């Protein structure tokens, strides 16, 4: 199926009333999650995954994707009104967005954020539609050594960009690989690391780990910091949310820059929208005629990072859908969701599950329009969510977490594991260990071990098979270079600044 026919088929699927409804639900929930500081899209997708078990896969993935990109739209609201990013990817938006709001241009800043997000989200999906088929066609030539090397490359990037310390990121990744080994061995049925518990023979459930690490971990971190928020007033009425012509003119190149930067960085595993928004802000400042004004409330300082963090979504779905390799926490959970529903993302997905693949892509075009329509007139309403007391919100999320973990297997044992992983997630955050590498290590652990062992079976135990094939050799060499790159002082300084978004 070529791109045009694929998209037409996708629109036929996405425009079905039930799928339109799920798209709207996902976008709406995503916006709320984006507005709420502290609860990210990864945690929300993990929490809602059990609800999708009874849903039709196409509708379910459309809803989860809506949460994923909807949260990025919503994340800018708190950045602009509170100087507090709703999502890590909206950190850069605080710099000029909050300054605009302080100067009485909060409405224009919110409008620019919504319009940039719409433009970039749409460009990102167009690029996804165009880039995904050739990438999938190329990946058809991959065998076990190439897949193993590709996973090494992706995980190396995740470790590099996962946190301040690459050692800690690698350790988190290795712990993820270990957790993936718990249970019966794929090839020999040998029980591994089960601590005498027969309930662990089937392995650890992904949802229990994801909800524990993200949802419980985030709640515990939020409980730590108790403090009142001072929100700037939100202008009412659509007219007050539209930027003026001068402001829009100033943003036009920033939107294009952010869209392209965001998509390219989104394709790279581990980079994520935080890095994308930082890089696009830096590029915009570097090419601007008035770089000294950045930080004082210039509209292009809002447009570039917001465009980048939304175009990143389309980029991030390229490796997920065409190679089955997620680049971040949210896409890792979406990969697990697809596998749970019996769909294997990878080069054959377009042919084996065209409804899901093209339906999802088409739904993102629709979702971007839905989000623009939702975000412009309803921003004052969404901002009111910030007034919901945390003493209601936090216990409710804990209750949802219990239900999410219990509904996986109806075993109370899983709720115990959930508490354990929640504590682990909190301690990792306190001690500076990033959680994304652990989740990706867990998600890719089984596939990585399988690919390595199959490669060695093909070569009768000769490890040189990994470096004698050109694609795997290049990918492994890149992985080694990536892991050694922090040794370059200037690169490491840039990396640390990018991760902190400053």
């Amino acid at each position, binding site marked *: 199926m070529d791109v045009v026919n694929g998209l037409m088929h996708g629109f036929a699927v996405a425009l079905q009333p039930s799928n339109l409804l799920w798209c709207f639900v996902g976008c709406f929930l995503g916006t709320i999650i984006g507005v709420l500081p502290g609860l990210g899209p990864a945690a929300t997708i993990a929490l809602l995954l059990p609800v999708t078990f009874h849903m039709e896969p196409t509708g379910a993935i459309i809803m989860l994707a809506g949460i994923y990109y909807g949260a990025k739209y919503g994340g800018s609201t708190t950045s602009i009104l509170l100087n507090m990013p709703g999502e890590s990817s909206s950190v850069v938006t605080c710099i000029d967005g909050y300054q605009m709001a302080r100067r009485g241009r909060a409405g224009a800043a919110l409008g620019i954020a919504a319009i940039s997000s719409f433009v970039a989200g749409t460009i990102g999906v167009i690029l996804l539609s165009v880039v995904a088929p050739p990438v999938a066609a190329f990946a058809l030539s991959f065998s076990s050594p190439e897949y193993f090397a590709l996973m090494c490359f992706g995980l190396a990037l995740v470790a590099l960009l996962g946190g301040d310390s690459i050692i800690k990121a690698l350790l988190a990744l290795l712990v993820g690989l270990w957790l993936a080994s718990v249970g019966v061995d794929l090839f020999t049925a040998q029980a591994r690391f089960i601590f005498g518990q027969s309930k662990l023979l089937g392995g650890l459930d992904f949802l229990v780990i994801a909800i524990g690490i993200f949802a419980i971990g985030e709640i515990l971190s939020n409980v730590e910091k108790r403090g009142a928020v001072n929100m700037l007033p939100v202008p009412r009425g659509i007219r007050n949310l539209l930027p003026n012509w001068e402001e829009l003119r100033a943003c036009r190149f920033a939107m294009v820059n952010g869209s392209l930067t965001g998509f390219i960085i989104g394709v790279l595993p581990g980079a994520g929208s935080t890095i994308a928004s930082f890089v696009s802000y830096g590029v915009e400042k570097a090419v601007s005629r008035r770089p000294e004004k950045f930080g004082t409330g210039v509209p292009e300082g809002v447009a570039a990072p917001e465009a980048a963090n939304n175009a990143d979504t389309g980029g991030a779905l390229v490796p997920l859908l065409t190679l089955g390799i997620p680049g971040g926490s949210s896409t890792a959970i979406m990969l697990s969701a697809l596998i749970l529903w019996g769909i294997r993302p990878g080069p054959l997905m377009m042919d084996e599950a065209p409804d899901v693949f093209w339906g999802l892509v088409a739904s993102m075009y629709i979702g971007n329009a839905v989000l623009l329509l939702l975000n412009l007139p309803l921003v004052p309403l969404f901002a009111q969510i910030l007034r919901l007391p945390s003493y209601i919100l936090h216990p409710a999320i804990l209750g949802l977490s*219990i239900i999410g973990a219990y509904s996986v297997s109806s075993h109370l044992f899983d709720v115990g594991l959930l508490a354990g992983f929640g504590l682990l997630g909190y301690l990792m955050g306190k001690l500076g260990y990033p959680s994304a590498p652990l989740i990706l290590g867990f998600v890719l652990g089984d596939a990585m071990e399988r690919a390595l062992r199959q490669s060695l079976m093909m070569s009768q135990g000769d490890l040189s098979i990994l470096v004698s094939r050109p694609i795997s050799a290049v990918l492994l060499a890149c992985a080694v270079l990536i892991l050694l790159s922090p040794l370059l002082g200037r690169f490491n300084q840039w990396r640390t600044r990018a991760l902190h978004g400053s």
Partner: protein
Amino acid sequence: MLSRIVKDADVLSGSVLAALGVYIIMEASQWEAYTAGGPGPGFFPIWYGLAIVGLSLGLVVSKIVNGKGEEEGGIDWSGAPRALGAWAMFAAAGALLQPLGFVLSFALLTFFMVVVVFRQSVLTALLTALGCTAGFYLVFPVALGVDLPASPFGVF
């Protein structure tokens, strides 16, 4: 100086991870690393076990060599008792699911979190616990038909 380093978060976490790596290697060495059909169940764990030991020791050694104590590392533990208290309540609610069922355990969790962690009045806590529990009961078991642990008293 020595006690500062021993109490340092990186040194402590690195030591725990090194111990985990040793455990993984010891366990994996009991399984075949190579079989007639190719790599065995012990092959992959031995490699990442060795990597965990190497990296965690690297973390510990670099901290000791640099000699920076915790106060220079800047981890703020002042809010940890609140977070750990909330976690203990959550864990207790998980343990009470078997004898009390979801509704009662969740109501207790909400009540104690609102009173102890968020320092609200008993009345606020009571109303929040009742409201949240009723909402969950109506949405999950009633509307969505989700099976939740039931209490011996006949209610969810």
